[in-house]
């Protein structure tokens, strides 16, 4: 039982990180209807920015804020130069996939050009310590991840429900043409969405880097877990991203305990989840059902 609780705790901590990346993916999907395959690479890039700021002697929490600002700017810039000229992603799915794949390659290569190809050690935001509750060790880093995720969800809720910008972003997500007609600056809000998604991704990167080492391939597995999270939760549902992230985190942590085949293939259950959900319930748990008109 203790063993189960232990892997459960680890799973919840991992799940919080997947949920963070998933939140970024959802923000972009809601506003532009696009699955951003470059999201993980953007997160990796801004984690490197964080590392650079930290290395010159800035305390880590401040460096993370700096990295988020950096990520925001990079995300917004890439949207303006590469994504915005594309138009509606569902009308040109191939072009959209190709452009995000192009961003994937370019951002990955750029990180290697700037920071080299050797992995960097990355410190834990909440230190190495842990507490023991009833025989189960819980690392502060895991508790921190859940707290940060909760803060993020609160922040998103406040932004979307309580501010004018958030209202406009929701309007764009629900019908961008009508919003443009009533004077909502649609392109600027889409840019804001990309910036926000990249900023949120930074935090996911900061939590992933200490375990794996910070290199240009940092987020490639996490990205699939993030996609699994939002597939399960529903591509357009922030709540779904959080619930989905937790389910995926717990599943990939608990399953290998009972089915050893998955111990080195933690990705396999996530893949099966993506496949099955898309086949049998494409809108996920909390997503809006898409109606196809002919």
């Amino acid at each position: 039982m203790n063993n189960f609780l232990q892997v459960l705790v680890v799973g919840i901590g991992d799940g919080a990180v997947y949920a963070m990346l998933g939140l970024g993916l959802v923000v972009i999907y809601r506003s532009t209807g696009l699955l951003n395959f470059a999201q993980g690479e953007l997160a990796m890039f801004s984690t490197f920015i964080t590392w650079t700021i930290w290395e010159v002697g800035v305390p880590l929490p401040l460096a993370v804020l700096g990295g988020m600002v950096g990520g925001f700017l990079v995300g917004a810039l890439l949207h303006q130069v590469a994504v915005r000229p594309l138009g509606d992603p569902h009308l040109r799915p191939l072009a959209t996939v190709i452009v995000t794949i192009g961003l994937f390659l370019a951002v990955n290569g750029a990180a290697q050009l700037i920071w080299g190809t050797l992995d960097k050690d990355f410190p834990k935001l909440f230190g190495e310590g842990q507490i023991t509750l009833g025989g189960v060790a819980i690392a502060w880093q895991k508790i921190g991840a859940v707290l940060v995720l909760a803060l993020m969800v609160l922040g998103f809720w406040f932004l979307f429900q309580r501010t004018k910008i958030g209202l406009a972003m929701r309007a764009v997500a629900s019908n961008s043409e009508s919003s443009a007609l009533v004077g909502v600056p649609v392109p600027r809000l889409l840019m804001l969405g990309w910036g926000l998604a990249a900023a949120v991704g930074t935090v996911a990167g900061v939590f992933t880097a200490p375990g794996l080492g910070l290199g240009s391939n940092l987020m490639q597995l996490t990205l699939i877990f993030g996609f699994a999270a939002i597939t399960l939760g529903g591509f357009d549902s922030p709540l779904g991203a959080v619930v989905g992230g937790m389910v995926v985190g717990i599943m990939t942590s608990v399953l290998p305990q009972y089915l050893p085949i998955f111990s080195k293939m933690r990705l396999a259950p996530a893949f099966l989840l993506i496949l099955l959900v898309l086949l049998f319930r494409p809108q996920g748990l909390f997503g809006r059902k898409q109606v196809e008109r002919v």
Partner: protein
Amino acid sequence: MSTSAHDRTARERWVRGGIWLAVAVVLLVLPTQFPEFRVEQFCSWMALAVAACGLNVLTGYNGQISVGHGALYGVGAYTTAILITKAGWPMLAAAVAAAVVCFVVGVVIGLPALRIKGLYLALVTLAVATLFPLVIEQFPGLTGGSNGLAITSPRLYRGVVRDKPIVFEPAFGLAGDQWKYYLFLAATVVCFLLARNLVHSRMGRSLVAIRDNETAAEVSGVPVATVKILTFGISSALAGVGGAIFALNNARVNPSSFTIVVSIYLLVAVVTGGAASIVGPAIGAVLFGVFTDVVSPSLPARYQPATPVILGVLLIVLMLTAPGGIVGIAQSLRTRATARRLRSSSEGTTGPATAA
């Protein structure tokens, strides 16, 4: 006027024939002009070109987006390697078996792809591509695990039969690498001709009809499900042949050769060359090969990651400005030249009737 129009098409036919002849001569002469390591690189470009040709049938012509063809390329390579090394099959039989195995795998992937479309199919195939090397590492007994598998066959060596890495023996007065090159070239040409005939056939027109409007195709009597599944199978079989060429060329397979990056590079080859054109993927594969094998190694090690940056930017710029790739650019240049010629000839005579 009809005679001059006829002359023009005749001239165009001559130009086309000339270009193809020149390409054929270059392809045939190439291995005699370069050292062995270059010839082997040319062989690996052919492997990529064949796989890209397969991806193009699926993505360019049929509109089903796969970001996972690197995995099918890998299945082809590993099938070849395992059949030769563990089961003692001859190379050609192993390569054919790779195509068959990949066809079956493709059909199996094609079934869920009937329901999962567009961006979501891209997501699933991306996950397949990421998962593939991990699965390979799970079965070290068969695949050699993360160390990879040297492709060996039992041969008489100093009076004893031993497992030695496969080599292409010199034949017909050609060095081993040249013989290998011509064999692969023949296989590549056959694959491209097959793809060309396929897209010009009744089934090929069905492919395009489904891509452009699935509902309209269905209503017009195209068996949409069958055609889509078959396309996935054929596309995968071509990717498998590409993988077989890759495996035979290197005499070794590694899980690290079939990461998500390979799937991306296949898309790069298709898109830069020109999706939905037969020669496009070949041009794209050569361009990609020149980049990675000639340009990139000439850069100082520090700046070698510039290659993916350039390729990524190139992809985005092409998509935004010329979605038809290099072939598309060439076609639009030719159209413009023809229009100019028509205009200048019509100025000399009277009225617009000459435009015909």
